[in-house]
């Protein structure tokens, strides 16, 4: 990769993606080859929102490359609580670390922060905006299970606020992928994402029900419909019930269908699905470590410039 920062999936070309995924596969096969590759390197974990998977997988990835991590801790215990701006916080932390991972509740926060620092910065989620490192591990999982060309992908759930969806749908435009979006009307893709997909020439269709398109799908990517997005509980329950997957739902699917989810799930995937060969969401989460190792390696090594 030629980028100094990873802010949005829109930055990623097919060549960038394939380079990271190929490297991740090498690392997955033989992690020992990179054990001390970034010894002495310090990665700052700046999480202004709670996170389990993303934070721990970046932490693990850096340590498995031989480096170390520093953590600003919870927002409540940091200078942010005293009113310090994000711009000041990242400028201070830049002095302690060789790279930075940022999660923040505001859209555009990672882009803004990247303008204030000279070390590589990875957007680990900016509000309802983007989550490009999640996208790389999603693509890795799709490639392992279905390949990345001539496939049909269904993306279902909260498409409006789902940052993993925004990043993934954009990255998929680099490949020969037919994309179907399934959501309640109120949680359709934002206009800005639909605009980008249109500009990228993506093959996209939108639906309110899964049933009609399920048999066509090679991959079904499910996201959580968040209760807090709905003004009343009854409306949430009516909608959420329409977007739950259980083994019976999948009777109409291809045998080879891969079911994915960025996790955490609540009740949108019945635990009984875990026992079917469709379930790949835990493998997907595991893939976060080798993919983030490959990503950090590329950013810390200057990618093709090393």
């Amino acid at each position, binding site marked *: 990769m030629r980028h100094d920062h990873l802010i949005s999936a829109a930055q990623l070309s097919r060549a960038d993606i394939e380079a990271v995924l190929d490297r991740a596969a090498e690392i997955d096969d033989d992690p020992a080859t990179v054990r001390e590759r970034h010894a002495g390197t310090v990665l700052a974990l700046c999480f202004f929102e709670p996170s389990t998977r993303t934070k721990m997988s970046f932490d693990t990835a850096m340590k498995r490359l031989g480096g170390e991590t520093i953590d600003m801790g919870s927002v409540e215990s940091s200078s942010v609580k005293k*009113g310090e*701006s*994000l*711009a000041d916080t990242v400028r201070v932390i830049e002095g302690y670390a060789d790279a930075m991972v940022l999660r*923040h*509740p*505001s*859209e*555009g*926060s990672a*882009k*803004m922060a990247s*303008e204030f620092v000279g070390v590589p910065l990875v957007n680990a989620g*900016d*509000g*309802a*905006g983007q989550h490009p490192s999640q996208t790389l591990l999603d693509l890795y999982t799709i490639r392992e299970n279905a390949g990345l060309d001539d496939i049909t992908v269904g993306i279902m759930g909260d498409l409006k606020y789902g940052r993993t969806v925004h990043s993934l749908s954009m990255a998929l435009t680099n490949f020969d992928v037919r994309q179907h979006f399934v959501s309640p009307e109120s949680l359709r893709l*934002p*206009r*800005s*994402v639909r*605009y*980008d997909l249109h500009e990228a020439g993506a093959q996209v269709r939108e639906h309110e029900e899964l049933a009609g398109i399920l048999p066509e799908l090679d991959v079904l990517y499910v996201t959580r419909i968040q209760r807090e997005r709905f003004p009343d509980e009854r409306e949430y329950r009516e909608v959420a019930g329409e977007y739950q997957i259980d083994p019976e739902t999948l009777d109409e699917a291809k045998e080879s269908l891969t079911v994915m989810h960025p996790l955490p799930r609540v009740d949108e995937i019945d635990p009984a699905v875990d026992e079917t060969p469709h379930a790949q969401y835990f493998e997907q989460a595991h893939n976060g470590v080798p993919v983030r190792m490959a990503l950090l390696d590329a950013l810390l090594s200057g990618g093709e410039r090393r």
Partner: protein
Amino acid sequence: MSDHELRVSKIRNGTVIDHVAAGQALNVLTILGIDGSGGESVSVGMNVPSGRLGRKDIVKVEDRELSPSEVDVLSLIAPEATINIVRDYEVVEKNRVERPERVVGVLSCPNHNCITNGDEPVASKFTVLPDGLRCEYCGTFIRESFAGHIDGSRSA
């Protein structure tokens, strides 16, 4: 010399914004952050007959020359406008506004959760597209009513 040109020449120093779309004069003043409290001498002509536009507005501001960023955003609400810079009663510059590639620090992003609406040392930045503007931070579009998104802090 037409009556209009005569009126322009009566300003000693300042800016005359001519060929503003009818009804946009007050938005022009908002963009310039002028509400009368700063003591500027301002003249506004609204719905003045115009050969080119049919009807137009004219704004004259004494002792103030527009900055490039102000001219940029004026082009969004008054794409036909001409900017006349007057010094010592003479029109020394007469420029048409041009649609910019970016508008920086003038409009507020309509996405309340955009980082540019937080308490950060960063100016809003919008890319100008053929059919609107797009926030360079969060991607949100402004398709219409540009004047409604003028940064309130620009007003006195």
